């Protein structure tokens, strides 16, 4: 089977990954295995020194992280893959709706929600006077009982 080996510098949790340095190679599932869809092990016809230059792969219409490499022979390397479910199913994921509790955009997030991410230091004092601020003039008040 044909395997496309490549590289990505994007975080693993990013759905849309940019792939570079793609190259196609031939390979086969490791003999004696029941091939796994999630964590396949494939023997690829490339030297080990070439295999270490890749960290990502695409085959059978799916995307995979390279988890491990083992040199089998001078021109053969056994590579262990793990399915990148986010990139593989990114189209289907985006068709779903969800209840979210954190979002990068201020227009989606609510900045007035209390946020455990806040970090504060110290405090300072603001003072305000009211619009009717004035210097009052005192007066003496006499109260008496008696005839009016």
């Amino acid at each position: 089977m044909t395997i496309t080996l490549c590289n990505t510098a994007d975080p693993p949790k990013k759905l849309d990954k940019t792939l570079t340095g793609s190259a196609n190679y031939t390979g086969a599932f490791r003999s004696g295995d029941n091939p796994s869809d999630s964590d396949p092990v494939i023997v690829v016809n490339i030297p080990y020194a070439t295999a270490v230059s890749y960290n990502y792969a695409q085959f059978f219409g799916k995307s995979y992280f390279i988890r491990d490499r083992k040199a089998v022979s001078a021109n053969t390397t056994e590579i262990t893959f793990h399915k990148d479910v986010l990139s593989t199913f990114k189209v289907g994921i985006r068709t779903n709706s969800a209840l979210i509790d954190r979002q990068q955009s201020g227009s989606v997030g609510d900045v007035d929600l209390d946020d455990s991410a806040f970090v504060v230091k110290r405090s300072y004092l603001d003072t305000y006077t009211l619009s009717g601020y004035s210097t009052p003039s005192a007066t003496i008040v006499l109260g008496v009982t008696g005839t009016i």
Partner: protein
Amino acid sequence: MPTIYHKVYAMPWWSGQSLNWGSYALSIPLDAPPARDGSDFTFLSGATNFFPMVQQQRTGMQLTSCVFGIDPANPPANVQSDSNVSGFRFGHPAETPRLSAYRVDGEMSYNQVQCVYVMSGTWSYGFSLQATGSYDSPLAVTTGVIEVQSFLGLAFNNFIAPSDVILCLADWWDDERQTQQFAWVISVPSMGIFDYATIGAHPYFEVVEEGDEPEVPILVPDLPTLDASSAGVSLYKAGNFNALINYMWGTQDFLNAIEHLLGDETPYECIVAFNLFPYGNSLTAGSSENIHIGNVNTGISAPTCNQFCAVDFGSVTIPRVHNNALDFAPYTVVEVQLPFIGRVRVPTDFVMGHSLGVVYHCDVLTGGLCAFITVDSSVIQVEGGSCICTLPLSARTGDGARQAISSAASAGISFATAGGMSSKVAQVGGAAGGIGQIADALAAKDSYSTFSNLALANGYLGFSNPVVYVHRPVNATASDYNVYQGYAASTSVSLGSVSGFTRVKEINLGVSGATREDLNEIEALLKEGVIL
């Protein structure tokens, strides 16, 4: 059945097409009023927002009444008072477009001369039309002022009686049709005029369910009307009472003249109050009268005054600084230093971004003080204190004043809250992460001394105006934390409509072609946070 409120927007009322407004109004036979009189109508609040217009139609003075609402974006800006005619001169500069009013149907089919009816409930202005025009030659609206008085038979510059209502929107329940009816109503009882016109087209209105009705603000109450003057106590205000003191101590006439003393008291017991009141400029002086002590007319005059007065210190809008949750509790604390009371805390969430005001109601006889703290004119908090400085007339009264101050000092803690910001932080029970950590950190910080024990003479030596103190935190959160953690959110979104860091709280995930293990892993990753 829930109470239903209606908010009605602009709706024209068309009377007869060719009728002169005056003749229409006067055509109502006074002895055969319409089926409904004014008592059946409820004049809707906000109806004065509708400006009735007198619409010029065809030629001459044929005017048809109609009513349009106000386009909030284009209020009639050219209304100005005219001292010569004691009314509003309404118009616009010739070079600007004719002022238009907002209408539901959006049509403006006639040349219009707008007029304003001031529905103050006390009086209304009339207007005079100073020029005529035609359909093809509209009125010179730069001077256009409608003389409604001539239509209603009122004298020029005459005021309409307070009970008169000009063109208000009203509604009533029509038993026959079992439906709410809306109508424009003109009611001039002084002229024997009442008329109404039901709105032909359906007005736009909103039905507001019970619980969603407009809020009714709780305003500062009026001062009491029953006071000590009804019990024979007279109050006087003056800068000094030296003449009276000289009279009492300097003549034998005073002692000889006092009769009907109570018990074994001295005549000076008739002096029930001799106080220094700090807000003298808020205490309105009445007419000057002779001071009577007991049955003695001292011949010394002084202005009288009421027992109660209101001192309005105005308001201030508490601005937001951080524009996020740090502006609110528990991060920000708002306190008000109240004269004669001390420092009191107000709920930050209520006042932030709103207008905070203080009004004192004072009793100059007893020194009783009631402080109303308002937010947007609605009372949210009431505090009590004592605002006078008792002036001694004798050693005994002086001792009493000193004891009162001492008692106030020991009870001062009840007048104000103590402690600084640390004690104000509400401990969030079971809070995970930052909120609880911040609360703990603030609790460990220093508190500071109180501003309390400020009743009586202590308060007279202190602040005479309220001061608002706002304790604000310094935000040390990284400016780009939203890239790594996202802003707090509580909403449902389509994941295809957002981008950037997103953390899902709950999702019913379905993806074509994904196994159950795939779905479990995808959901776990979404709940940790992914970059869409």
